């Protein structure tokens, strides 16, 4: 039986290979080799092929650890990721709950689609749309001054809150989506049982609903936290001078300063941080899947 299985397995690979090879070759050339090359180049003084002499060095990593600037920026980006994730939980979770447990039938389907639709439209354009709303003399400013009896100046543009608002707007549909999927899988009779046994609404929420939907929360958090830590376009457009983060510094190394080896080292450090975060989240995610 075991021998038979091994034979089947070998012939399986032979038949599968022609179908698999093109896709995985492409992924290798355009994703896996580049990531390996990035690690390699991060240990060099200059890019080879640029004509200049090059040598192996640890200097790019030394730069990260010796200049507090990079570490400070990485911490700022991690804090940004944490804040955006928390806001997405606070804003997205209740909405996911209403979608999963209050709305029914066609209206639920329609509203669910409406929530995740913007998510699949261009992120850059959505960030730009916030610039329209937030700038001084913009819509928020005009609208508030039309309603309020006293004059206030709203100029959130080019500030930290503007970056937070733009990023939360971009990523909150992720949280709604993942939480909705786990919340709607919770059997209503569990909630009813808890209630009929005398638990208050808050107790049911704390003891039944939140624990059971934890995988959705963790999945959403990972899906939001990781890209936010690596964001650079959003802080640039909405943050202006206050929008310097780890991601924007990496961008600078590649498009402004042209110190690619340092950029590669900074990217690789970010990748390591991201992988650690995903590794921590993965046991919960695997239980969800």
């Amino acid at each position, binding site marked *: 039986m075991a021998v038979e299985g091994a034979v089947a397995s070998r012939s399986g690979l032979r038949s599968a290979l022609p179908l698999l090879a093109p896709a995985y070759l492409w992924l290798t050339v355009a*994703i896996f080799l580049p990531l390996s090359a990035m690690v390699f180049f991060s240990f060099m003084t200059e890019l080879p092929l640029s004509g200049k002499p090059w040598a192996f060095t640890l200097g790019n990593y030394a730069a990260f650890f010796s200049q507090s600037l990079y570490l400070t920026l990485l911490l700022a980006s991690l804090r940004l990721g944490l804040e955006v994730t928390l806001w997405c939980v606070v804003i997205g979770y209740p909405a996911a709950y209403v979608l999963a447990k209050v709305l029914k039938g066609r209206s639920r389907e329609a509203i669910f689609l409406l929530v995740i639709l913007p998510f699949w439209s261009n992120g850059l354009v959505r960030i730009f749309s916030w610039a329209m709303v937030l700038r001084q003399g913009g819509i928020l400013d005009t609208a508030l001054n039309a309603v309020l009896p006293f004059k206030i100046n709203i100029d959130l543009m080019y500030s930290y809150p503007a970056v937070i608002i733009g990023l939360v707007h971009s990523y909150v549909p992720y949280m709604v989506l993942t939480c909705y999927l786990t919340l709607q899988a919770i059997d209503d009779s569990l909630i009813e049982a808890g209630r009929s046994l005398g638990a208050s609404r808050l107790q049911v929420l704390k003891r039944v609903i939140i624990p059971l939907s934890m995988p959705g929360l963790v999945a959403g958090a990972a899906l939001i936290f990781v890209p936010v830590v690596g964001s650079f376009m959003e802080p640039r457009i909405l943050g202006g001078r206050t929008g310097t983060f780890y991601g924007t510094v990496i961008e600078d190394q590649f498009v402004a300063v042209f110190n690619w080896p340092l950029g590669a080292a900074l990217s690789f450090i970010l990748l390591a941080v991201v992988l650690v975060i995903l590794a921590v989240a993965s046991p919960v995610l695997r239980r969800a899947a």
Partner: protein
Amino acid sequence: MMTTRILEGLGRLYVGLLLAFLYLPIIIMALMSFNVSPFYQLPFEWTTEWYTSLWQDDQIIAATWNSLEIAIITTIICVVLGSAASLALFRYEFRGKKVLHALLFPPIAIPWLITGTAMLIFFFGVGIGRGLFAILLGHVALALPYVIVVVSARLQTFAPELEEAARSLGANQWQVTRRVTLPWIMPGVIAGGLFAFAVSFDQFVVSYFLATPGQTTLPVEIYAAIRKGFTPEINAVSTIIIVVSMALMLLTARFFKFGGEK
């Protein structure tokens, strides 16, 4: 009973507020593309001037064509390679299959900033350089895992016995695939293709690092324009992009249920 109804009412109101938060900025941006004032001044006066001037902007037009071409080629390549790979992963048993599934994860999970800069370094290093071909290489790699995941999900609902039956009735491998398997997974293939188109057409980060001044895509061109200063023309082109990508996703939703139920 009373409290339940009040709470449910509040819940609905809350979802309404969330939708307003999600859509108001986009609607405002779109409205401003039809406003006369180049400095976004109110009162609102209707015009389509910004759309006509867009039509005469050669750079934007060229970038739009590039974006469309790359998105279409990406879609075709991803659908063919992705469906083939999904079929192989579904049909055959072999060692290392789990690894192949796991390898789909990094391109989706690693921030595009890292993937994009890594591609830039590697393509430059091996002599591919930057430009439209490099962008196409990158886009296909980014979209391929999504297509494989979506088509594989559809294959999960396919009964392998159908292939057995067709084979026992004398169909060869190609006939089985074309007549039995492909028609069944078609909704997944179409949804995957629309996904691939959207991933490519909306892609900014990776394109940004791989573009050169002459060979660029629409989002990269818009980013450059935004950094120069805001103009209603950017609103106009942004409005077009938003409408196109939302229409695409509505189309995708027809073929593929996101909710996971029904």
